[in-house]
Structure formats: C-alpha cells, structure tokens
C-alpha cells in the first residue's frame, strides 16, 4: 500500500477555525440555487469532470476575494508562526457539514490543501503515481499537495470538516 508522508505543517490551526466560524455567514453554499437549477435542467449522466466549479459539489466556500481583512490576517499570522512561507496568491476556505462532499475531479493547476479539522472517518482521496489512489485521513494541520491532473475527491463526510486550499502550492519539507 502506498504510504503517504504525514506533514503536520500548520500549527495554530484552531485560530483559523475560530475566525472562520465567526465569519460563517460569508461562506457560499454550493450548489447555489442557480447551479442547482442549471444542473436539474440539463443533468447529464455522472461523468467525473476534468474541470469543474463547485456546482457539482456540496460544500460551503469562502474564497480569498470575499475573505475579510481580519480573517486574512489570522491566516497570514498562523502561517508565519508556523514558519510557512506566505507566497500564495489565492486561497479558499472550504467547509463541509455531514453529508457534504466533493465529486472526483482534477484541475489544471497544483494546490496545497491544509486540513483544519481531524477525523478518523473523513479525509481526502487523491491519486498518486502509477495509478495508485490513497486515502489521507483528516488531521488538523496536515499539508497535502495535489498536482495538476491528479484525481481527488471527498466522500460524503460524517463530521463537520474545514480545509484551506492555497494556490500556488507551498513547498513544505516533511518534518
């Protein structure tokens, strides 16, 4: 079985969770009514998409451009305290309630994913080299890089889940 190195890179993740909770109303729930209507009208048989927006998924997203300065500050300071370079140009917080999910998909660009919650039941499934797929259980602070073209998804979660997606990906040595 392919082993996935564990990099618990982000300390102080509880501060990001708390700040995100304070701004919970800013998260956009997907699918939005417009996305649901479009999907219902022209629903095609399920075909794992190569490119997608969150319209296929069920989760709540707070992208960088809608994140208030105070929350951006908490994220930046948490990264600094963890000695992680803040060289990313965009990020998004993604919140899941029980039953929420991300369909299997892949993207053109790489990204860093940080778990902000821990769970023995939920996690990220990601493709690795040679057709391998691995399941990475959620552990707060954990950092995973998803490369372009790598399939990845989140099965319907059983517990509330919060992640931070950062692009471009960060180079964090395993420690």
């Amino acid at each position, binding site marked *: 079985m392919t082993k996935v190195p564990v990099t618990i890179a982000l300390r102080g993740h509880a501060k990001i969770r708390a700040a995100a909770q304070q701004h919970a109303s800013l998260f956009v729930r997907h699918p939005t009514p417009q996305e649901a209507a479009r999907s219902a009208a022209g629903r095609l048989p399920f075909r794992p998409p190569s490119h997608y927006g969150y319209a296929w998924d069920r989760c709540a997203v707070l992208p960088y451009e809608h994140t208030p300065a105070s929350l951006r500050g908490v994220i930046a300071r948490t990264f600094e305290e963890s000695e992680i370079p803040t060289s990313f140009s965009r990020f998004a917080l993604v919140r899941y309630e029980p039953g929420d999910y991300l369909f299997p998909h892949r993207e053109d660009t790489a990204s860093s994913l940080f778990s902000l919650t821990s769970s023995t039941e939920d996690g990220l499934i990601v493709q690795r080299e040679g057709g391998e*797929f691995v*399941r990475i259980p959620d552990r707060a602070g954990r950092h995973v890089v998803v490369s372009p073209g790598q399939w990845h998804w989140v099965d319907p979660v059983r517990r509330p889940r919060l992640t931070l997606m950062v692009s471009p990906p960060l180079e964090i040595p395993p420690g």
Partner: protein
Amino acid sequence: MSTEAQHFRELRTWAKRHQPHFERGPGHGLGCPHRYLRASGDVLPTSARAACEALIDPASADSELAAVWLHIVPTGGFILPCQPVLEWGPSTGGPGERLEELVLAVAVDGPDGATHLLSGSPRREPEQAGHRLTVHSDSWYWVSPVLGPERISLVWIMR
C-alpha cells in the same frame, strides 16, 4: 449469532483462507484499474456456496440470478467510480435481454465503506455486516482506499 451472521462468517473464513482462488478484479474507473480481488461463486466449496444461496435474496418472478462473486478489497485497495451493473454484469447478449440490478452485501463490520451515487447525490453506505446495497444500471459506486482490514462482500446480479 443469527443464521445470517453465521453465513457471513462462513464466507469470510473461506475468503481469508483461500485468497489463491481469487483473481485480480477487472474493470477501470477514472482511467485506472481497480484494485480488488474476486472469486466466482462457481469455485466456492459446497458449504460456502450454501451460505451464499442462503444470503442471496430470492429472485422475483421475472428475473433470474445471473452471477455471484465474492469480492475482497484489501487494505490499500479500492474500487474506483464505476457503474457496477455495466462493469460486472454479463454481456447483454441479444435484444430483449435486460440487466436488472446488482446487489452488494457487506460481509464484515468495518471502518470503511462504499459510496453510492444515484440521481446526482452520493451517499456513504454503512459498513455493517449484512448491509445490502442495490444498484441499478444508472447507478455509480465506488470504494475509496481501504484503511482498515480487508473488506469482504458478496455480490450478485439479477437478470
């Protein structure tokens, strides 16, 4: 222990002891091969076959049992998103032959589970011995990489 639990235990015991009887499971999802093992009901000894027959729900008047397998998804193994009826069903043969449904019955409690997609929303199925999932021709199904012990299930398809 209930009779059904005893039958599942019989199948689990046989599967764990006779993995050489299992072949690498066919099929692909997301452009990659699945990673699981399967054994046809035809290779099962009398006692295990009897256990299968006792567990398989009786066919309706207008359908018949087309195939039976035992599946093992080992630790680290997976079944990628696929349509099981199309993936594992027998070839459709001539016009008028209609695939009915495929049933997957979990043989052992575990931390893992399958995901079933029908009508647009996926559902994570419980991983409890005896739990049955019926998938139809337009259903999608996958088993994400197994973290716990090997995942054993009984699979049968009705035609």
